[in-house]
């Protein structure tokens, strides 16, 4: 048990949170994007406690396959075990703290620290050191000095999550009914999904929340921000979201999914008619698998964030983590997800299509970056940082009477998910323990 990570002594709560964030009133303040003291609280009370996305199972096929990533700012190794399970370790040697794995992915029989030659097997056990005899002379107990393992690892439909906090709720409880919606992208065909190779990483000078919130429920920006990209890719404007007859914003524990039921609105912007046809081809089998309702979601105008920083776009099939690197900086890790059963040429079109649209060279993403950076940077001004920012759209749109699971709100052009995201953020920053986090969910846990 010695290799379990010590839980944090959580620092004193901030006393001014109510001033920077009042979701009942539909307001936040720019200070939450720029304050160093708020950021330090986030690393402890959010990133050291919540379930964080660390890998897709398809990146870890064989024993010894590993990737390195971060949980908050903590560097971790995610590695496939002999028994098929997945372990997640701090990427830091328990001797002087040096990084033990410098590559982003590969296959290995273990990890060796470059500093004093401490050597670990893929299960994290310390198996040897340079000049091992001198340790024996000091009655060193090797069994106590393996790589530090995170508290819990669990998966949902190929998505691997980990948490540092042994007291956190189960992944199932954390995700709640959002899994019903995740299936629309991650389980719409037999065999599930896989990531195509590689990871593109880029750097934004923005706060992680502004990006995560954009995906949790801000389709409103798309018609305006992305007009140029839509015209470049489609020769016309993006679909007018207010014209959709039926659309929803759904949230739970700060996660949010906003979607229309137009089936192909997102995939269409990749400008590849074959991909639209693929979606139409699989749709009947999705309807059999998941029902008619979700078969309309598989590549529709939609986006999702799983709290705090894991996001994706069905249809464009970009999957991403907004890695926090200070209050006003993130590293964006992006991957492309495809159905395992899709034909190779379809997978290849998605690899290129995600690049053309949502990547550092993507014609859509280029117009996001500047917005997010300046939403952050204006809060450098002490006066500006204290001004109220409006987040009040759709206050009275909660749907009491719906068969859908989760906290369901009418319409995508709605800031209900953004408010729920910031509310959960507020609740976690205000709570010393998970039991102090209020349950604000009022929708159904299961679909009817």
């Amino acid at each position: 048990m010695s290799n379990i990570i010590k839980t944090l002594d959580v620092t004193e709560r901030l006393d001014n949170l109510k001033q920077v964030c009042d979701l009942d009133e539909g307001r936040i303040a720019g200070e939450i994007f720029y304050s160093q003291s708020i950021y330090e609280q986030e690393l402890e009370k959010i990133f050291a406690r919540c379930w964080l996305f660390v890998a897709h199972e398809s990146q870890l096929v064989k024993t010894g396959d590993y990737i390195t990533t971060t949980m908050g700012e903590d560097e971790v190794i995610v590695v496939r075990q002999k028994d098929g399970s997945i372990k997640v370790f701090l990427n830091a040697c328990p001797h002087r703290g040096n990084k033990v794995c410098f590559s982003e992915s590969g296959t290995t029989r273990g990890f060796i620290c470059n500093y004093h030659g401490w050597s670990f097997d893929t299960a994290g056990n310390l198996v040897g050191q340079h000049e091992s005899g001198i340790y024996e002379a000091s009655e060193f107990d090797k069994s106590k000095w393996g790589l530090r393992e995170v508290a819990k690892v669990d998966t949902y439909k190929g998505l691997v999550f980990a948490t540092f906090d042994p007291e956190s709720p189960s992944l199932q409880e954390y995700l709640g009914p959002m899994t019903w919606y995740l299936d629309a992208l991650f389980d719409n065909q037999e065999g599930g999904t896989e990531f195509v190779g590689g990871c593109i990483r880029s750097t934004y000078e923005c706060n992680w929340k502004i990006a995560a919130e954009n995906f949790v429920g801000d389709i409103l920006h798309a018609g305006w921000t992305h007009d140029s990209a839509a015209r470049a890719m489609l020769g016309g404007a993006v679909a007018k979201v207010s014209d959709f007859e039926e659309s929803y914003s759904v949230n739970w524990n700060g996660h949010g999914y906003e979607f229309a039921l137009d089936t192909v609105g997102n995939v269409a912007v990749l400008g590849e008619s074959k991909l639209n046809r693929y979606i139409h081809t699989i749709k009947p089998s999705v309807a059999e698998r998941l029902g008619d309702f979700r078969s309309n979601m598989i590549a529709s105008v939609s986006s999702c964030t799983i709290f705090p920083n894991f996001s994706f776009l069905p249809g464009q099939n970009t999957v991403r983590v907004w890695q926090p690197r200070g209050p006003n900086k993130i590293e964006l890790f992006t991957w492309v997800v495809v159905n395992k059963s899709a034909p190779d040429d379809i997978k290849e079109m998605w690899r290129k299509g995600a690049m053309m649209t949502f990547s550092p060279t993507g014609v859509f993403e280029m117009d996001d970056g500047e917005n997010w950076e300046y939403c952050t940077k204006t809060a450098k001004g002490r006066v500006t940082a204290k001004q109220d920012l409006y987040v009040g759209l759709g206050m009275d749109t909660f749907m009491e009477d719906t068969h859908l699971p989760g906290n369901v709100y009418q319409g995508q052009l709605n800031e209900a998910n953004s408010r729920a995201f910031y509310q959960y953020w507020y609740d976690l920053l205000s709570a010393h323990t998970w039991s102090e986090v209020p349950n604000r969910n009022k929708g159904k846990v299961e679909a009817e």
Partner: protein
Amino acid sequence: MFTQSAALESVSQDVFFEVAAFLNKEARLLDEERFEEWLGLIHEDIHYWMPGIENRRRENPLKQGFYDKDHMAYFDDSLRDLQRRVARFRQPSAWAENPATRNVHQVNNLEAFIAQEPNTYEVYSTFTSIRSRGLDEEYVIYGRRYDTLIRTESGLKLLKRLILIPNATLSCKNINTFL
């Protein structure tokens, strides 16, 4: 890592001069946002490729060392893709292009060889792309390029470009230019 496929013969001084002029003009057209003229330098069968760079151990290489043709890329473009990128730059609603990004493209370490295919040259260079936006934003991207130029009836055209940056993490938010 890219390596030369065979020991190739250097081009003549005249051709070297012509290739250098081509690359310098290309850089200037990009600096001056003359994208349609820039597209005029591109062959219709262009493969314009900038793979993602992966930080891997030497004993665990990808197909091409630290990149892979099947992995994610920054550019993996045909002429249609390049035209679409230019089309975005030209939209009045490309909000993040107004005020304009100010560009300087530099080309250095030029080598040019007679390629095995007829009328083609293998051209290697290093580049620096400096961009500034707003009052104080500055982004520098540098790397190495492996080009194939082809001589056509309307002059030299870019047939293939492989762009390799050293960075496994791009140090800026986007690449709103061509490299």
